[in-house]
């Protein structure tokens, strides 16, 4: 029995001659809020579909809640909000939840109570009697979110849950994810909104062409700083020194940037520059943001597709 909720080993998916997911290996611990980040076309949605048994992998294998991918029983304890949530739109919000609940094998008063609680939780109680036809994109997404939580899942997959939401809706989802974590529910989050990911996730991985290229534990690096330098006359030797003080060192003429593991590096950087004889005009340090890390990991040359 594995101690992971989800693990995949070398998962691969090929569409014709297009390799959407090259080699995906990851593991998710119970209770963890996990961010799955990557540029458009990195294979995030495809990976999710393979994990949920909607797509047959071309290679590799994995376990979801201890069962092989595609196992029907495992899905009873899993929730899923697809990237484009769609359902017959003549159903009302409430009917939607009732149908979903029955697909989970729920019924009776338990289903009714959970539906009402979730409708309230996603702020759709007022609209619950209206057909989905009249819902806005964000309302539909919130209805889908409620449907994904009906079975009180151990693990919820959310594929860009906030892409259609207004700031208030995003806040709602952020709170919801925090609540889920507090209850011990794990979340697998695909999102391009890095601020949101930063605020909710325990750990993120960056994928590129369906391969994990970087893993980052959030909160563990609070001291990290993104340092920006403007100095004239930086020698190659100085650049080597600076690069050794942190990671992701980049130089462009008089400007340079790098990421360091704490404030204590700043005087060292200043001293190195001054001692090398270069003229220091600017030295700026900001808390490391996920966005900077994303750009550093992905490289700016990476184009979508």
């Amino acid at each position, binding site marked *: 029995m594995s101690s992971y909720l989800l693990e995949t080993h070398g998962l691969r998916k090929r569409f014709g001659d297009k390799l959407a997911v090259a080699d995906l290996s990851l593991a998710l611990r119970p209770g963890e809020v996990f961010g799955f980040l990557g540029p458009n076309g990195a294979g995030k949605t495809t990976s999710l579909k393979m994990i949920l048994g909607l797509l*047959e992998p071309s290679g590799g294998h994995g376990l979801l809640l201890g069962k092989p991918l595609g196992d*029907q029983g495992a899905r009873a304890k*899993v929730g899923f909000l*697809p990237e484009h949530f*769609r*359902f017959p739109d003549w159903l009302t919000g409430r009917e939607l939840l009732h149908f979903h609940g*029955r*697909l989970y094998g729920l019924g009776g008063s338990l289903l009714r109570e959970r539906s009402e609680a979730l409708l309230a939780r996603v702020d759709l109680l007022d609209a619950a009697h209206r057909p989905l036809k009249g819902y806005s994109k964000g309302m539909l997404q919130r209805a889908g979110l409620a449907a994904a939580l009906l079975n009180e899942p151990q693990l919820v997959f959310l594929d860009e849950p906030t892409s259609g939401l207004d700031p208030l809706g995003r806040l709602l989802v952020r709170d919801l994810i925090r609540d889920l974590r507090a209850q011990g529910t794990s979340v697998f989050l695909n999102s391009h909104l890095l601020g949101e990911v930063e605020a909710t996730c325990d750990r993120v991985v960056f994928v590129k062409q369906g391969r994990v290229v970087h893993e980052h534990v959030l909160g563990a690096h609070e001291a990290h700083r993104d340092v920006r330098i403007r100095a004239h006359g930086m020698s190659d030797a100085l650049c080597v020194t600076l690069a050794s003080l942190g990671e992701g060192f980049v130089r462009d003429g008089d400007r340079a940037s790098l990421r360091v593991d704490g404030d204590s590096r700043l005087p060292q950087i200043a001293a190195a520059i001054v001692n090398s004889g270069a003229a220091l005009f600017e030295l700026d340090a900001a808390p490391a943001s996920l966005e900077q890390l994303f750009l550093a990991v992905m490289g700016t040359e990476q184009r979508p597709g």
Partner: protein
Amino acid sequence: MTTSAILTIVEMTLHEAARRRILLASLVCGCAFLLLFGIGQHFVLADIEHQGAKGMLRRGFILNFFTLAGLYSVNFLTVMSAVLLPVDTLSGEIASGVLQTVASKPIARRDIVLGKWLAYVLVVGSYLMLLAGGVLLEARLLADFQLPGVGRGLALMFLESIVLVTLSISGGTRLSTVTNGVVAFGLYGLAFIGSWVEQVGGFTGNVGARDVGTVASLIMPSESLWQLAAHHMQPPVMSQLNLTPFSPLSVPSIAMVYWAVGYIVVLLLVALRGFSKRPL
């Protein structure tokens, strides 16, 4: 778990079918047809009275033929609905992404297909019974005429509609909606023409033409099932005289029924298999 899952899908599908305009359209067409049939019956009766009752036998033949003609139209309307109502139930929901949410639930893909199939068999079967019942009732009320062999006849027509529902659903697991419709009607047309070729071949004694018809009815048994149904719904003397298009020289053998049942089973297996690995 499995039955309750299937029932949920059945209910969902019935719900969906009931909401669709196409079902309403079929029902409106059906009612218009029944009205027309009633009016026609009225004139046929008037004609019979006018010519004077030259024996009950002649009256019976005419009414039998006319009622069979009514059922033939019912057969056609049912075939249309059997193909068109379920034609996009899988392909449409695959394209829209609805099935992503359904298939990610703890439900077997098999049950999704079986639930949808069952729902449309129910819908199309009810449609058939409604229209055929209407025709028979009108014959009974207006002309006091009762068609023989109705039980067998309707059962065979129902079997035919199941063949087409299954074909339509099965195609939906692999084909897009439009392609699926084209293929299903193409096969039906093939069987239709094949059966006429067979009739002509029977009259002229052309063995090749008869073989073509037989092959067509094996590829798609729908028309043969109708002919068998019609055969049972007329008195033996009428079918032996080959007086009408519904009493052909060569009546399909009973083996056609077994063939059709096997055909349904195989199509269903193809559907289950096709959908089990279908990327959603």
